[in-house]
């Protein structure tokens, strides 16, 4: 018995020493990681600036823009007559947009119009297509859960979602070489240097093989997205909000690669919804030929110059079709 007690005592003593050293070892790692996370939250980012704008102007905002990167990069709220915010984000799907709408609509008392980006392939994108860091940003900055599941403690961390991306951002920041230049609406007015600029906007130098296009039909996603869109429109109807579906200009080289059946499916879905929700309008700029190569960042994303032109055209459309 005495021996057993002795052994337990030694064992406990060893355990305490071990725990002490483990804590001592991990403490710097923990502090560094916390510092890293805090620094990342402190860096200027689109969601951060947008949120600041939202907080300051929530009572004046009349237009809320939602969608994925095409919409994010094609609408600069600076050129809209009405106060607007563009919460579009890279790869942000319909589910995420619906969650953002539900979270922000109650906070925006004068919201009149929601613009939802609807490129030809958006209804075929599965929810897991959305980049992970978007969910984390939505949660950390906007306080909106777009994960489609219960929140876990690690969802409040940013760095691990895309270490390459965030390391680059930190490095750029410390070298004072950040390519991001955000206006007060959180729109990046410096996103010029894409593949089209590299080719000096000469379409003969652009290889079609290098154009990234999501041309995959997905019936399951189509079914799920149809349901989500229906929920989206019902929500807007119940809250007296108009809906404008929008597809931004895309370059003709990109348009040639699009799957025609996918375009037809998207268009017939819009038509179907138009019957049930008559307040929906669709402004499709995909084939607008006045957007020449020098308006593009790459084949399906506008550069800030293109965004200015597209937003001015959108502003005209809103002026001609809505009276708020």
């Amino acid at each position, binding site marked *: 018995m005495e021996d057993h007690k002795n052994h337990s005592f030694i064992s406990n003593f060893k355990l305490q020493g071990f725990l002490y050293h483990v804590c001592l070892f991990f403490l710097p790692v923990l502090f560094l990681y916390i510092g890293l996370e805090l620094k990342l939250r402190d860096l200027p980012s689109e969601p951060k600036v947008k949120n600041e704008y939202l907080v300051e102007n929530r009572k004046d905002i009349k237009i809320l823009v939602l969608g994925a990167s095409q919409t994010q990069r094609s609408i600069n709220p600076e050129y809209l007559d009405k106060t607007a915010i563009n919460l579009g984000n890279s790869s942000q799907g319909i589910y995420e947009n619906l969650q953002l709408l539900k979270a922000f609509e109650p906070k925006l008392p004068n919201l009149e119009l929601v613009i939802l980006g609807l490129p030809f392939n958006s209804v075929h994108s599965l929810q897991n297509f959305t980049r992970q860091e978007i969910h984390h940003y939505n949660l950390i900055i906007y306080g909106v859960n777009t994960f489609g599941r219960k929140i*876990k*403690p690690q969802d409040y961390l940013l760095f691990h979602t895309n270490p390459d991306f965030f390391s680059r951002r930190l490095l750029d920041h410390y070298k004072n070489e950040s390519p991001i230049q955000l206006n007060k609406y959180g729109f990046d007015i410096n996103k010029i240097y894409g593949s089209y600029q590299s080719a000096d906007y000469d379409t003969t130098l652009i290889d079609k093989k290098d154009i990234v296009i999501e041309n995959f039909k997905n019936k399951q996603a189509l079914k799920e997205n149809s349901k989500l869109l229906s929920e989206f429109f019902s929500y807007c109807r119940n809250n007296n909000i108009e809906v404008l579906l929008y597809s931004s200009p895309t370059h003709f080289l990109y348009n040639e690669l699009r799957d025609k059946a996918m375009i037809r499916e998207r268009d017939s879905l819009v038509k179907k919804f138009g019957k049930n929700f008559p307040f929906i309008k669709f402004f499709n700029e995909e084939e607008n030929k006045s957007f020449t190569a020098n308006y593009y960042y790459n084949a399906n994303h506008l550069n800030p110059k293109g965004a200015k032109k597209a937003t001015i055209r959108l502003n005209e459309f809103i002026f001609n079709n809505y009276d708020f």
Partner: protein
Amino acid sequence: MLFNSFEFALFFPTVFLLYWIFGGKNIKYQNYLILFSSYFFYGLWDWRFLFLIFLSSLVDYIIGLKIYNTSSQTSRKQLLYFSLFWNLGILFSFKYFNFFTENFYTLFQLDYSSSSFSFLNIILPVGLSFYTFQTLSYSIDIYRERIKPTSEFVEFLCFVSFFPQLVAGPIERASSLLPQFLKKRNFEINMAKEGLRQILWGLFKKIVVADNLAIAVNLIYSDPNDYQSLELFYALILFYFQIYCDFSGYADIAIGSAKLLGFKLSVNFRLPHFSRSIPEFWRRWNITVSVWFRDYVFIPYLKNKSRTEKNFIIATFLTFILIGLWHGAAWTFIFFGLFHAILMIIYRYISIPTRINFTSSFTYYLTNGTFIAICFFFLIISSAFFRGESIQNSFLILKKIFLFIPDENFESLIGLKVLFIPFLLLLEILTLKKDYPFFKLEQHFSKPIRWCIYYLFIFLIIRYGGPQESFIYFQF
């Protein structure tokens, strides 16, 4: 719960603290805590399968005792057959029923829609192949009178469900793991340190190497038609290292976690890519599974037959087809097994160079290197079957590789992260005689240097970790 998840980073330290602070006083507390933690760990995937693992344990526990207490050889045999039928029946129902039904219909060109049979709409319980084999070996070993059964039910439940090795091995024999549950574990600081170091090494292999390689491998394998010879061959090499780092990384974390709780698990990998022959490869790769098949399929088959060349060939084919099928119910795995069986037979007639045959070290190392390179080439080719999404897909990859179609726009897809492979190999070569590169590091470096090494690897894991991937062997 994955070992490379935040959940595990919370779960394991909690278990560790509770285990040593409260469980440290009494063996019963220790085992209850392990049992509860293991069932919690497993139940997080799907709590319904807890009943299956419990039932499976209960059946083998009772059968083990009955076999031991029965003197009649016929009854003993019947009990063993019941255990085999029970364990293999579960495995067949969950893992192979749909595969065999589908192939039966295809073989006899039957119309599935008009039949009264239906495919089972069930999911495969995680780690089923691992724990079923563990319980099977328990009953067989009792039947062969190699071990005595335990009457301690809780300890037996712990043996079947021990969470570090529950879902992807190493498959432990009752003779080595069960006695460890029957005696109290005392905290050993050196063992705990080794455990932490091995976990760190495993996490590096899994998160930094395997998960980064997975980006390129998944992309290329998802549509091999889009790629040419060089890219496809490159993908096969990457896949070998992906699966090696994935599985051996898991094993390292499992063994390391077990060490922290005072347990010793079997080594499952011994640098298989430095094998000079395929038989040597199977002595270094997934060792516990290959030894299981050797002891329970290959040797028993040969024991019952005359030791002729023909019987050896049959035993080899049988063993490797079963090893292939153990990995999954698909033709790709059967072809993987067949390919290795053929190589095993071929290598039987090739003598591997030994140091004595050579007068010059240079010629010896050159010959050795050539043998390693040839063996590695075969491994790469066989991984086309292992990873292929279908048998057609695997053959398409091999066909395109051997057509030597040049790639105009060859891209590495993961960029310089591929350099983690030579980094890994270099560390392994420098520490060839160790269990893993961090083993007994205190014998070589002072504390500040050791800590710098650990910090470097933690930095690599945090900074260069790939997108989280599940462990490949969980599906088996």
